């Protein structure tokens, strides 16, 4: 007797739950297609357990469907930024820089060595085809290990000590990667703005692959399309990051519908996107994203005329006053987000400069410290950045758990007396008639700083540095060029010193790679040849000559082998400390601000945020799929 009402209640509850699920509102733009049977209803489009986006931010609200978001990019090829903003990754960073599963339902990580990925059952590509471990298998077997598609082997991230992982497909929704030694770079690489894609839409790409359709057909097909080889043709169709193939299925919130070249790209909502809001409604809220291509130098002007809903790229801090002035008339607000760079502007003494006298000086820590002490950072901050930046050495930002105030302050005060004392102790006491110190070989100390000629900001800052260095008896000249020439000059040792932004990743956690702190890449402007040496497996370039640089390489290597975060944190801190004391790069100011134009009716864009490439993916971390447009009413 007692069981019946119970059963009845249970049935009622089930019916109610079912009804609740069915009630979740369908995006209006998809209603017609759902009714016509072109796409299944929302419940069938979502994975069985979609990712519920619940953002704890005071001004954050549940949104409304619909609308069109316009933004500007400088080149057709920049359409890849939509993959950066979309930020649909296997695992991604949340606003506290924790790595959390996104496309994946769960990651099991054993000692950063064995990674087991669990997909969301029922997850689908943007064309409705199931997204399964077959797509990982296609990447592993038919792309990464295909002699034609990857003639130079696996991507570096996947290699530890030159050995790749063991790859196993455990089921339709689980794959495992096993390395013999830890690979802490693996998950951060998957969460990056330009991530390592270890999955491919196999059902789509098979039609281009010689293994699946036969070599003759693949070659004939490529020839007909004007490509040089079938591998090139496959590669062209398979650019998940370039985002230039409208036919390529995607997992991003918006699908690009426009092929290159174009001046206007239209992106439409992905009906199979795997995220929902708290109310169980499928994201994204905004139906269409329209990207107009305009010359980069005109983007501030166009953003100021209200031609965009959201714009940050190609806006610079010196546009701020112009934008603010126009914001009222054209109904937008201008936010200032913090930039994620370790230093907005830093000087890089080239330790590999080909002039022996200068090289000896550059490699002497006293000289680098003297140069750093000889910069009046406060003046630069007041004059160029309206006092809004923070005077700092080139180190990590306060938001990072690795931040220490002493790293920021190290040799970053303005102290002409101490700087002169350091220079005197180097034996540079002779001076010429102009009061310039003389090098041991009798030449006056004239430092030429190469700039990439990107902005007047660089030259403004250098002008102020020149004034204060003059008090040390050192002359500074700036030599603007263009990026390619600039890099060539640095790599070949022709350039003495360069100016560029500081650490790219200013907000690292211990689990992110400290490769920027050690000579590991040629692109590091302070030690290009040592970096090249590491990059080419100790065959090209020059071996690091300073013990501190060698220690940094060793520390980096041990970071790669470290099995847990605590150990990695110790390594990071030691590396940062070496950097602070050795002043390998001379930071000037940090926490510079990025103006962001947001139309008044665009909601859920945080007022304060971090504008950072990695980690952060610029807007990506703040979930543009939850941005929404309030219908235009009376304002």
């Amino acid at each position, binding site marked *: 007797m007692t069981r019946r009402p119970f059963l009845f209640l249970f049935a009622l509850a089930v019916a109610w739950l079912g009804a609740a699920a069915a009630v979740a509102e369908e995006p209006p733009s998809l209603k017609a297609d759902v009714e016509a049977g072109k796409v299944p209803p929302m419940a069938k489009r979502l994975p069985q357990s979609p990712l519920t986006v619940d953002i704890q931010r005071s001004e954050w609200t549940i949104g409304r469907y619909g609308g069109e978001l316009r933004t500007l990019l400088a080149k057709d*090829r920049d359409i890849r930024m939509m993959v950066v903003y979309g930020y649909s990754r296997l695992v991604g960073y949340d606003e506290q820089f924790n790595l959390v599963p996104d496309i994946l339902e769960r990651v099991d990580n054993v000692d950063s060595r064995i990674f087991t990925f669990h997909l969301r059952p029922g997850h689908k590509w943007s064309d409705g085809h199931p997204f399964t471990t077959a797509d990982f298998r296609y990447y592993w077997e038919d792309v990464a290990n295909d002699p034609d598609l990857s003639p130079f082997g696996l991507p570096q991230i996947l290699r530890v000590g030159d050995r790749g992982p063991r790859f196993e497909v455990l089921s339709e929704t689980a794959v495992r990667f096993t390395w013999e030694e830890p690979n802490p770079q693996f998950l951060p690489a998957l969460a990056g703005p330009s991530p390592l894609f270890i999955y491919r839409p196999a059902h789509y790409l098979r039609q281009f692959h010689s293994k699946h359709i036969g070599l003759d057909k693949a070659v004939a097909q490529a020839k007909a399309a004007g490509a040089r080889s079938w591998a090139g043709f496959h590669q062209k169709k398979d650019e998940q990051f370039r985002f230039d193939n409208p036919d390529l299925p995607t997992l991003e919130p918006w699908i690009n519908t426009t092929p290159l070249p174009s001046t*206007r790209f239209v992106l439409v909502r992905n009906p199979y996107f795997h995220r929902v809001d708290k109310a169980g409604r499928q994201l994204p809220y905004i139906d269409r994203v329209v990207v107009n291509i305009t010359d980069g130098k005109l983007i501030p002007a166009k953003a100021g005329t209200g031609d965009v809903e959201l714009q940050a790229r190609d806006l610079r801090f010196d546009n701020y006053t112009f934008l603010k002035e126009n914001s009222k008339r054209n109904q937008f607000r201008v936010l200032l987000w913090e930039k994620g760079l370790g230093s907005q502007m830093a000087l890089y003494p080239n330790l590999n400069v080909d002039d022996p006298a200068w090289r000896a000086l550059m490699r002497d820590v006293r000289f680098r410290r003297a140069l750093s002490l000889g910069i009046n950072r406060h003046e630069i901050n007041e004059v160029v950045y309206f006092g809004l930046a923070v005077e700092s050495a080139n180190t990590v930002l306060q938001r990072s758990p690795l931040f220490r105030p002493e790293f920021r302050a190290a040799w970053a005060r303005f102290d002409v007396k101490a700087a002169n004392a350091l220079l005197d102790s180097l034996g540079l006491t002779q001076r010429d008639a102009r009061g310039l110190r003389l090098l041991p070989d009798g030449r006056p100390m004239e430092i030429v700083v190469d700039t990439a000629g990107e902005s007047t900001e660089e030259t403004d800052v250098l002008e102020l540095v020149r004034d204060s260095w003059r008090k040390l008896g050192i002359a500074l000249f700036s030599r603007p060029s263009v990026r390619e020439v600039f890099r060539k000059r640095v790599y070949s040792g022709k350039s003495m010193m360069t100016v560029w932004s500081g650490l790219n990743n200013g907000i690292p956690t211990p689990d992110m790679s400290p490769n920027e702190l050690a000579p590991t890449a040629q692109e590091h402007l302070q030690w290009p040849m040592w970096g090249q040496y590491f990059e080419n497996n100790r065959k090209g370039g020059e071996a690091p000559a300073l013990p501190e640089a060698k220690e940094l390489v060793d520390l980096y290597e041990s970071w790669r082998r470290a099995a847990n975060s605590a150990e990695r944190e110790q390594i990071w801190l030691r590396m940062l400390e070496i950097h602070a004391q050795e002043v390998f790069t001379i930071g000037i100011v940090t926490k510079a601000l990025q103006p962001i134009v947001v139309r008044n009716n665009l909601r859920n864009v945080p007022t304060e945020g971090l504008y950072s490439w990695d980690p952060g993916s610029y807007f990506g971390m703040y979930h543009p799929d939850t941005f929404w447009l309030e219908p235009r009413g009376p304002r």
Partner: protein
Amino acid sequence: MLRYVVNRVLLMIPTMIAISIIVFAIIQLPPGNYLDSYIAELQAQGESVDPQKIAFLKKEYGLDKPIPEQYLRWAAGMLVGDFGYSFEFNLPVSKVVGDRMFLTILVSSFTILFTWAVAFPIGIYSATHQYSWGDYGLSLLGFLGIAIPNFMLALVMLYFANVLFGTSIGGLMGPEFIDKPWTWAKFVSILEHSWIPVFIIGAGGTAGMIRKMRANLLDELQKQYVVTARAKGLPPGKVLRKYPLRMALNFFISDIGSLLPHIISGAEITAVVLSLPTTGPMLLAALKSQDMYLAGSFLMFLAFMIVVGVLISDLALVALDPRIRLTGGIAR
């Protein structure tokens, strides 16, 4: 005459070969190649590229081959209509240019027609009414037109259109038509949008042409045959149309040589400012990013247009002006 034409056409072959070598050399002059500038651009944004992928692209694009071989491949391809591969767009050059070429020709043709339609009557008026208020006024306008760079005019108009009317005037068609197949509505939309770029690009050219027309006509108006015609009692309008005007047209025909490449290249900077989907911005971008086959093919095409244009204007001059004769040796 036939012999002259044949000689001129044959001479075009070595000219084009020489131009192709110069073009290729100039594109190769900046240090590095496309991939270097590609990597530099990515790194400037903090992006990095997997060295494995760069190695793959280098091989795929043939950038690992010696430069003479790259040149020969490109030059041989052009003979059979294959203009090479655009690295930037990952497409054959012919596909990249596509629609843009047509739109460019359209805008440029309108511009030229606009220039003629405005410059002709004004030039004639200022010549026949020399030193009148009308002449001064129109000349002032003309000098302003020459003095203000096109792109500057475009920026000023962009600004005022926004401040006064709250609209943006960039583009060449309504946004709904971009990349859509050709329809009547699209064509109408292009016509509606094209008058602004036509006016802006045409302004400088119009002013220049007014000055030229005026100067040439003034020369002729002083001559004795005009005085004679007037003395014989011909009405002034008829005198003008029948004699000095025709004489003054020579400059106009010899201008065709430089006009043809203009049709293709358009006004690059103005097109960039107005975000016109023409070939100008694309050529500029290709040169900047060292997308060598795209840039090279563009430049070759422009050179070809100049060579053909000069030939046409030479032949037309011979045909139109009986004073020009091919005497004293062949060809040159």
